[in-house]
């Protein structure tokens, strides 16, 4: 049975890691991107000054390992695994044999994992729970005479260092260690110490919110209301030892019964975990984080592969698709492949969520609206748990270098240089500090600096079009800005504006090789001279002729839109008439 339990434990661990990798791989990436860990003493000390600081610091440390696919999932699973081990250890008490309950311990990490699927539940909360119970397990291994004192001494340490999980630590400890003959030390004293600690923290104003002091809400994003199921881990953590202790004197005489109970214990929570996981993950968030991750890693093909399978009913998906196309230099060729719906397909309405601000920063950075890119990166960063994250920090380094704000860039770089996984990046960009020549020579930073508008205006006050026009005034070679500008006119169905845009940016003396959608738009201008002027290809002309023929043939068809969509849904002409 023991060997069987060990094998099942390993299988459960593998299952947990697989589930994480399956359901929330990009949630892990998002956690890493919106986190920043600096491993020195000055960074650590402020954590000690707040309740739960040790857990929080360890959480921040652990998150930096989340970026890699499988190892990230394994790192994310650490508190779940540790919780499992600690619970199993607690039930293997030398005094009372509760090991029959060990298989059922899987219910606790299963509940914890379901909690962790909710991105509003902090990972360090799970870590704190695991550490608290691991501490309790270590205490349980000591001699009874020492155990009680260690348990008592641990209460204020766990409360201050790990937060509200101290409630579980104390309750579980009482359940496991309480003895009638020694009720003073095993029941009354821990309760008194714990309540005194809480009262001290509460009434001195250090932490006033009792929910934060005593419940899982301590580990939940405060702007959201915590769903009830997050109590599941706490409940399971206390119920199991209680039941185990209650039935410790009961032994199953029939081996078959033992095996049935054992197997059920392994299978039921695991099966529930697998079956219900989907209900606890927010799929749309996972998608957005995936897209953000690919954008951060500049893996534009991955974005396009992902969105190609998705119904394009989400402006954020459209924005990311267009961002990827722009960075691949194919925006104006393929923008209409993703069924855009208005200007918001290029740049969605900005709100106060970090995800949208990150996207807005990316888009503005791509076209060269550096002030806006900087603003949105800063605003996104403010929404992160620590008010700083590596993704936004890097963007802010770049924007400040482009603007020549070297002192600010140096400040950010000095922080990034103190991280474990990004210090090479900081070293690479440090060479640009106070070195305008190097910036201007750099392919990326130099291009963005050359796109800085000479004319100052209030960003986006008159809309995006004037911004893009200003950029092209100073840097007509900025292809992304040019294509976004042209598409802006088309998305707004402003053919007059588009014609003026064409004349200005593709007219006499300039490169007249038009991308596909611009060629299609030229056909829609219904100006034969423009068709000749801009060398519209024969293929486009033929396709337009087909479009017009089919349109004329089906004009009276109530299903005209669908009919046209089948063959021409990707074209500018379809968009101009039907969207």
């Amino acid at each position, binding site marked *: 049975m023991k060997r069987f339990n060990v094998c099942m434990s390993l299988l459960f661990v593998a299952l947990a890691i697989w589930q994480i990798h399956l359901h929330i791989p990009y949630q892990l990436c998002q956690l890493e991107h919106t986190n920043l860990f600096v491993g020195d003493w000055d*960074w650590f000390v402020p954590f000690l000054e707040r309740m739960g600081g040790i857990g929080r610091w360890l959480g921040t440390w652990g998150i930096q390992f989340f970026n890699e696919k499988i190892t990230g999932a394994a790192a994310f699973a650490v508190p779940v695994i540790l919780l499992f081990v600690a619970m199993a250890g607690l039930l293997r008490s030398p005094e009372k044999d509760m090991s029959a309950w060990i298989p059922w311990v899987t219910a606790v990490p299963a509940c914890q994992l379901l909690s962790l699927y909710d991105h509003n539940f902090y990972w360090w909360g799970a870590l704190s729970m695991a550490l608290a119970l691991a501490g309790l397990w270590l205490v349980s291994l000591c001699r009874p005479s020492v155990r009680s004192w260690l348990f008592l001494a641990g209460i204020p340490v766990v409360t201050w260092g790990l937060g509200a999980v101290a409630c579980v630590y104390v309750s579980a400890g009482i359940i496991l260690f309480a003895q009638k003959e020694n009720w003073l030390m095993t029941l009354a004293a821990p309760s008194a110490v714990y309540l005194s600690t809480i009262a001290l923290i509460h009434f001195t104003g250090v932490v006033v919110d009792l929910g934060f002091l005593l419940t899982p809400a301590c580990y939940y994003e405060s702007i959201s209301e915590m769903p009830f199921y997050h109590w599941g881990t706490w409940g399971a953590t206390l119920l199991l030892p209680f039941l185990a202790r209650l039935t410790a004197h009961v032994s199953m005489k029939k081996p078959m019964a033992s095996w049935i109970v054992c197997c059920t214990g392994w299978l039921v929570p695991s099966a529930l975990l697998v079956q219900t996981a989907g209900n606890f993950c927010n799929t749309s968030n996972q998608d957005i984080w995936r897209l953000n991750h690919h954008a951060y890693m500049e893996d534009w093909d991955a974005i396009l592969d992902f969105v190609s399978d998705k119904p394009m009913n989400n402006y954020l998906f459209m924005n990311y698709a267009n961002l990827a196309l722009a960075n691949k230099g194919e925006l104006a060729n393929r923008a209409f492949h993703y069924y855009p719906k208005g200007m918001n397909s290029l740049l969605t309405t900005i709100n106060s969520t970090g995800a949208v601000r990150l996207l807005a920063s990316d888009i503005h950075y791509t076209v060269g609206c550096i002030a*806006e890119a900087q*603003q949105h990166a*800063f*605003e996104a960063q403010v929404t992160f748990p620590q*008010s700083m994250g590596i993704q936004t920090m890097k963007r802010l380094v770049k924007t400040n270098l482009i603007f020549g704000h070297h002192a600010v860039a140096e400040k950010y770089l000095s922080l990034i240089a103190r991280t474990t996984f990004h210090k090479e990046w900081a070293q690479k960009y440090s060479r640009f500090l106070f070195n305008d020549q190097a910036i201007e020579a750099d392919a990326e930073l130099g291009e963005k600096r050359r796109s*800085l508008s000479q004319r100052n205006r209030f960003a986006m006050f008159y809309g995006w079009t004037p911004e893009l026009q200003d950029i092209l005034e100073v840097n007509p070679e900025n292809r992304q800005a040019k294509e976004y500008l042209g598409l802006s006119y088309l998305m707004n169905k402003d053919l007059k504006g588009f014609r003026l845009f064409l004349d200005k940016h593709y007219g006499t003396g300039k490169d007249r090789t038009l991308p596909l959608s611009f060629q299609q738009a030229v056909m829609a201008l219904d100006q034969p001279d423009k068709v000749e002027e801009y060398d519209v290809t024969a293929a486009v002309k033929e396709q337009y002729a087909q479009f017009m023929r089919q349109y004329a043939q089906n004009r009276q068809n109530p299903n005209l839109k669908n009919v046209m969509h089948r063959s021409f849904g990707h074209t500018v002409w379809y968009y101009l008439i039907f969207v």
Partner: protein
Amino acid sequence: MKNSLYLLFLGLTVGLFASCSQEVKVLSSVDTPSPLVEEYSDMVVPPNIAPLNFFVDAEDGQEALVLTCDGKSISAVCKDGAIIPELDAWKDWATPDKPVEVKHCRLENGKWIAYRPFTFRFAKEEIDPYLAYRLIPPGYTLWNEMGIYQRNLENFEETAILENVQTDRNCMNCHSFCVQDPGKMMFHLRAKHAGTILVKDGNIRKLETRTEQTMSALVYPYWHPGGNYIAFSVNDTKQLFHTNHTNRIEVMDLASDVVVYDVERNEIIATPLTFGEESFETFPSFSADGKTLYFCSARKQALPDSIEALKYHLCAISFDEKTGTFGNRVDTLFHAERMDRSVSFPRVSPDGRFLMVTLADHATFPIWHQEADLWMLDMQDGNKLVSLDALNSTSVESYHSWSSNGRWIVFSSRRTDGLHTRPYIAYIGADGSVGKPFVLPQERGDFYQGCMNSFNIPELVKGKVETGSYALIQKVLDNEKEQVKMNRKINLTE
């Protein structure tokens, strides 16, 4: 064996002690000015301030200072980019109203070589022992964690008056004290649990300051010295971003007025002279005797297009504390358009002699104006506004406040990197002479390099705010508020 262990223990102890208190013995000197001269020589420093930070560009242990005052010397070696004397040594050694000789040394081949000495001095007058400020990232519209803190200026201790992690991450701002009295303070809350917290005589009140007659809740505060009134502005504020400008942001009021809140009656009083539609009034402050209300006023402009034409004058109107009434005339002390500058934050010294302002090129939120500087007028000397060149830098100098004895000011500056605001302290003599500013001292030399927050609204306070966090938080979280009324006797359409 036992002897070896003893010797080892002794050696470690000596080594530890030696490393903690490295004595600097100057073996020779050069007749070259120290790089610190420009920033630190002739400084005037409060006798009760925590050890100053002398910032150097050197590796740890390579530079040091020997400070001699009134025959007593202390030394300190550089660490983390600054030379900071030990607190205990500094406390015992500093003598009020005495000069300090500074020998700045560098280590060469194991020997300390001193530059030509320079001096600064301790003033006779102490500075108020506490500084209150809000810590917040230099952001724009969104926020996460912030808090209002108080720092003991005599050591490095900083404690929270209130942190928003305890109040559902709402926004708290515009903390203000009545004549630096920690027992009389107020601050605003925005978003969740919105309202204004007013602490006076041990009572904590939560006010709802929005009224039908005012365009917003009450905004920029200034206490009347008597403690029974607080002047406020009401503002309709907008924030826009520059595409390519030395200033990142422009914050403008689309409309604003000045009112006075009667603390006892819980009502707002106003005059049409500070409540006009054709002008923007803001940043009120009272004179030291409370008989004059200063404020900034600008002619209404079409915004944002005419933002550069928006210049705020410095104005004054009399105020009668007994009757709660205003005078019938507004005097313009500084005509912005004539000087082509815009005034903000008029602050009168406690002795009533000096009035300090921030001047920027235009508009009303100078912290985002790199050209913003501090100016001062001597009201005994013809009211001429003079630039405080000793305090100003090429970056922004803005929000300033006086100490209770009128000899010290603290002001906000972004001179370190152009973005993060740091509090600077400077001496103002009785004759209006201005000492060199120094940054709020910290315990670590690299503190400001790693600090991602700005120090917002630095206010000197005569003592520690004793109002407990628990009581404050309970009041903040309380949804019941006292509704402020508008005084119906005032006809604002005159």
